[in-house]
């Protein structure tokens, strides 16, 4: 039984007497298997939140059905809520309640026995801050509290809608740790984002939503292959080196520029072999750099219909948080290199 299954899920908004109808989500068939971390990607306005709203019964589908952990999302919404932890988009908290009191309410509502202090420390919210009213919180603190509220009652499924928005690099790292911990405990995580580096770092599978339609579903590696993306290895040698030191069959092109060797690999696993071969052949390697086709390229390819190209900065909005995140995250360095 999948954690999430939608069939023909569609949401149209009536444009009224004079406006045109707007289709926010069209015929989405989504399957999220139990125990996986599923990244739900798409540009702003693609319909991610509308889809999630229908999964959580915040909005009613125009057509189609959604099943969560075997329960109908609409008819059994309370049964769904009992097993699902939610960090919704556009949520608000009660400004006058303290963070700790808010969390106590969440524990009570979920019928759980969690220790609020343990949850607070898990999301990295200071006990002093937890005593203050939520109305005084920064966006990042609010987001941490909301994440703690989603974790109450050890849910079987976590639905996180843009969980990294407003978080600083530390918060994003902590979020990622929590997602991994939860996944290790068998929790299914459904994670929406328009920031690709984050999804790339934690997700098993990715679905890309564009203009209300699910345009691609695959593993991160699979998506790379599907688009035919290649990754590049850049070796800085102690002295100019002929290109024929690289003989690996996973390599499609080698280019020499001064002391640098630029090796284009069709298979990212070839990179390690190439480095080992070069070292074994007695050449002195000063530095190794790597660029992999990032999800940004894939994203651009899927949403614009163009072939992926290096240097495309597929992201708009949330640039600050993303920039900071890249600086702190090695796995996203590749994207950084490309956009330079």
């Amino acid at each position, binding site marked *: 039984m999948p954690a999430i299954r939608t069939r023909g899920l569609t949401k149209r908004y009536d444009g009224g007497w004079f406006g045109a109808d707007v289709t926010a989500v069209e015929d989405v068939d989504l399957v999220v298997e139990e125990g996986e971390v599923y990244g739900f990607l798409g540009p702003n306005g693609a319909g991610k939140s509308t889809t999630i709203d229908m999964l959580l019964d*915040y*909005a009613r589908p125009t057509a189609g059905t959604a099943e969560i952990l075997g329960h109908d999302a609409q008819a059994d919404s309370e049964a769904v809520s009992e097993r699902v932890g939610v960090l919704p988009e556009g949520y608000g908290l009660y400004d006058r309640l303290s963070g700790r009191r808010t969390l106590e309410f969440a524990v009570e509502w979920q019928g759980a026995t969690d220790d609020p202090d343990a949850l607070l420390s898990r999301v990295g919210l200071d006990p002093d801050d937890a005593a203050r009213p939520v109305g005084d919180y920064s966006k990042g603190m609010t987001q941490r509290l909301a994440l703690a509220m989603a974790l109450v009652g050890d849910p079987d499924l976590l639905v996180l809608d843009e969980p990294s928005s407003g978080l600083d690099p530390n918060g994003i790292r902590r979020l990622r740790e929590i997602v991994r911990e939860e996944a290790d405990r068998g929790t299914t995580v459904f994670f929406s984002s328009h920031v690709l580096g984050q999804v790339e770092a934690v997700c098993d599978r990715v679905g890309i939503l564009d203009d209300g339609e699910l345009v691609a579903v695959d593993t991160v590696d699979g998506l790379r292959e599907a688009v035919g993306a290649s990754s590049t290895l850049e070796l800085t040698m102690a002295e100019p080196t002929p290109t024929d030191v690289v003989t690996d069959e996973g390599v499609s092109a080698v280019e020499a520029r001064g002391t640098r060797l630029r090796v284009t690999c069709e298979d990212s696993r070839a990179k390690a072999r190439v480095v080992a071969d070069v070292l074994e052949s007695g050449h002195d390697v000063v530095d190794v750099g790597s660029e992999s086709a990032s999800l940004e390229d894939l994203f651009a390819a899927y949403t614009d219909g163009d072939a992926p190209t290096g240097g495309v900065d597929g992201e708009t909005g949330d640039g600050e948080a993303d920039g900071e995140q890249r600086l702190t995250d090695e796995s996203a360095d590749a994207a950084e290199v490309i956009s330079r």
Partner: protein
Amino acid sequence: MTWQQIARKDFEDAVRSKMLWGIMAVFVGFMAFVVGVTLANSDGGGASGDAALGLTAQLGQLFVPLIALIAGYMAVVGERRTGSLRVLLGYPHSRWDVVLGKLVGRTGVIAVTLGVGSVVSIALVALATASPDLGAVAGLLGAIVLFGAAITGLAVGISASVRSRGTAMALAIGSVLVFLIVWDAAAAGAYALVTGALPGLEAEPWYFLLKRLNPVGAFRVVAGAFVDGYIHEFFSLGLEQIPEGTETEQLAVENRVDGSLPVYLSEWVAALTLVAWALVPSLVGYLRFSRSDL
């Protein structure tokens, strides 16, 4: 069924809200004013206690709906706008739990506000003069709280039905105007249409029922059971053809209906009308809320 949790949260949140204390202060201030005015205008100590009750009921027609609507019209739509409803419904609460919890929570808030305000003002009277009959005080208190609950039910119903704060506010203000001014005029108009003449001092019994379906009218009846003398409409457009020089005692419904009073003109029916106002609009609001997107 988790509505108790929501009711408790709502009550706790309201207690922290400055607005609630502001409303209570205004209400107590208003009651103190009423008491002061009554004392200044009366000579006998015994009369002033009853007069204070009468004036409280009189002004309560305006103040209770205002307070209840102010405290209630944001109950659901406010959480909808801030997004806290998304959090609330992320837990195992149904939309019915939300509406019922809000109804109970806000009614509790209103009951406490009106109760404290009324007790304070009556204590002031008791200190200044001979205290009014305690049974009458308790009865009027009950009538005011029931009236407050009726209007709170309407406010929560409005709040659950609409998507924006502006719409909720317009409906709340509109309903006060309807109850205080339009309703009685419409009843008189309906009477004229059916019988060919505006109601006079004596009128068909159903005309009085029509006026009592208005929660304000029902409150006048229920409160009148505990207050000496006739409680006048807050605004009277003078559409009833009452001869000049009519004694206020003659305005009692018993004297205006031919023969014995039908059951539907009893105080109990008026009280039930208030209960219906507390429940039916919330039910309608829930039905609309349950079908809509957040």
